[in-house]
């Protein structure tokens, strides 16, 4: 008797089988039900986990971005090079010359410039925009310069005396600022991103008889086939499987560690969610279930900076990732329970990235890329196995110069 026929007969014979239960069973069940259950209306639609993760990631990004944007500039300047430069200039003799210029200056400019310069020094190149220029420095001096006692040398003598030391100081300052800029470029950057694959995958196919079933039914000799291996596949009658694999969704937090001016290494933590719907259709019954797999992954990528223009940065990245299945849930008609976890999943990939720096500390980047997922040998059916080569798009915020 064929397996399907035997199953149907057994199923039908016991389909309506009932066994008695004790009278007090309901009271025991009722006592364990939540009090509000009777009055409770149907539950509000649950917000899916991935939506909650997206919202959380967006909120974190927003908070971090806002913090960076609103962080007062004067809090950033006392980093080592600038602070030491300020200390150096603090030790310089104070200029007594007065001018009539009264342009307002910001506190930070005043703080650095105040003790240093007596007059504009126009022979030196301008400093970068983000730093105070020498002209600005010079212009600010008169407004903040205190008057000196009359016993001091005349302004002309003092100017002659201090000029070489001022130029020396400016050169030192320039060097330190240049060093500071280089160090800024080589500092660790932190990225917060969301990523997904392209498109859901649906599949609909018949159910093949396995080799064991073919052997059990002695199918080859009955049907006159020479060999199961060489013959065409044998499908089970009135059986069909439908699968729908939803695109993977990932959220990551990574840090970039510079190796040279163009190369950097990045690693961190990535959460990935895979969801799939499965429907099995027999001639007299439809069975549906959904699987949701949660992975935590560790990527390791090498990043090469190809081109930079103003706030725009183009780079290429390549590397690998290992994902560990930390949670696996199977849902059948609204009821969830644990299922077998997937094995660790290895993948390699590459991407081309474009980053635009909204401000020096914060960049927005887009990375279209491709990934290949190695077969990990497990019997868990998921997007990685159905489509091992996967195009994806990663969008994120990168905090830099931290």
């Amino acid at each position, binding site marked *: 008797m064929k397996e399907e026929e035997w199953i149907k007969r057994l199923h039908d014979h*016991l389909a309506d089988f009932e066994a008695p239960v004790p009278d007090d069973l309901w009271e025991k069940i009722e006592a364990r039900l939540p009090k509000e259950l009777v009055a409770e209306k149907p539950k509000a639609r649950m917000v899916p986990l991935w939506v909650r993760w997206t919202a959380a990631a967006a909120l974190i990004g927003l908070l971090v971005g806002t913090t960076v944007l609103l962080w007062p500039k004067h809090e950033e300047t006392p980093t080592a090079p600038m602070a030491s430069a300020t200390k150096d200039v603090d030790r310089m003799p104070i200029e007594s010359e007065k001018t009539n210029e009264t342009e307002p200056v910001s506190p930070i400019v005043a703080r650095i410039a105040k003790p240093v310069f007596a007059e504009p020094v126009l022979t030196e190149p301008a400093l970068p925009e983000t730093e105070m220029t020498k002209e600005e420095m010079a212009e600010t001096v008169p407004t903040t310069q205190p008057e000196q006692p009359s016993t001091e040398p005349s302004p002309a003598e003092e100017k002659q005396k201090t000029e070489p030391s001022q130029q020396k100081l400016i050169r030192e300052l320039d060097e330190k600022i240049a060093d500071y800029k280089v160090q800024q470029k080589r500092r660790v950057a932190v990225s917060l991103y969301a990523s997904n694959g392209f498109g859901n995958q649906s599949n609909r196919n018949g159910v093949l008889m396995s080799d064991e079933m073919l052997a059990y039914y002695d199918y080859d000799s009955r049907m006159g086939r020479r060999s199961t291996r060489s013959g065409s596949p044998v499908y089970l009658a009135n059986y069909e499987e439908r699968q729908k694999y939803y695109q993977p969704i990932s959220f990551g937090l990574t840090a970039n560690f510079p190796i040279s001016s163009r190369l950097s290494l990045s690693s961190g933590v990535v959460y990935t969610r895979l969801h799939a719907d499965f429907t099995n259709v027999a001639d007299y019954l439809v069975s549906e279930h959904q699987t949701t797999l949660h992975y935590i992954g560790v990527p390791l990528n090498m990043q090469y900076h190809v081109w930079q223009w103003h706030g725009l940065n183009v780079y290429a990245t390549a590397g690998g990732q290992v994902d560990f299945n930390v949670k696996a849930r199977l849902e059948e008609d*609204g009821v969830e329970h644990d299922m077998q976890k997937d094995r660790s999943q290895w993948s390699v990939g590459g991407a081309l990235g474009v980053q635009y720096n909204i401000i020096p500390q914060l960049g927005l980047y887009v990375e279209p890329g491709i990934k290949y997922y190695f077969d990990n040998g497990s019997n868990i059916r998921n997007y990685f196995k159905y489509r091992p080569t996967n195009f994806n798009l990663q969008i994120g915020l990168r905090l830099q110069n931290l």
Partner: protein
Amino acid sequence: MQETERQLIEAIRAGDKGALRRLYERFARYAMGVTLRYVPTRDDALDIVQDSFVSILTNIGTFKYQGEGSLRLWVAKIVSNQAINWIKEHKQLSFSDLTSDEIEDEEEAFIEEVPPDILNGMIAQLPVRYRVVVNLRTFEQLSHKDVALRLAIPERTSISLFHRAKRKLEKMIKEYINSQSK
């Protein structure tokens, strides 16, 4: 006339307290029958049915009505899952040793000649791993792939267990029929 499953669900969702009990009364004996196919001990089976109905009535808001009969199927699935979890918790389910239990092929058995309560009891008397696979494959209508996924075993193990269970059950049926004809 008995209310339909749709009417029953709508009554529960409308806050009709009596509808919860009506659902229980409608499916409790059926749930007990399903459970006894997994766990033959009556007291253990009653615990499983009790846990199942707490889960069913608490999660009734998530049930998706898909036509008459879908509520009954949903109840059976929850009961089945609860029974398998109970078996796992009591460490009765092992798939490590499949070398024993060689059973000879039996001639075609006449399933319909065995009363349902006897046949149900026969399934419950199968070794636990056979019993679970037969239940999932026959009454849950899962493919071998899905049985394998559900029990975390290779697909070929599911196929092998099912066929051994089938042969063993056929043997039991034959013995029963022979004993009745004497």
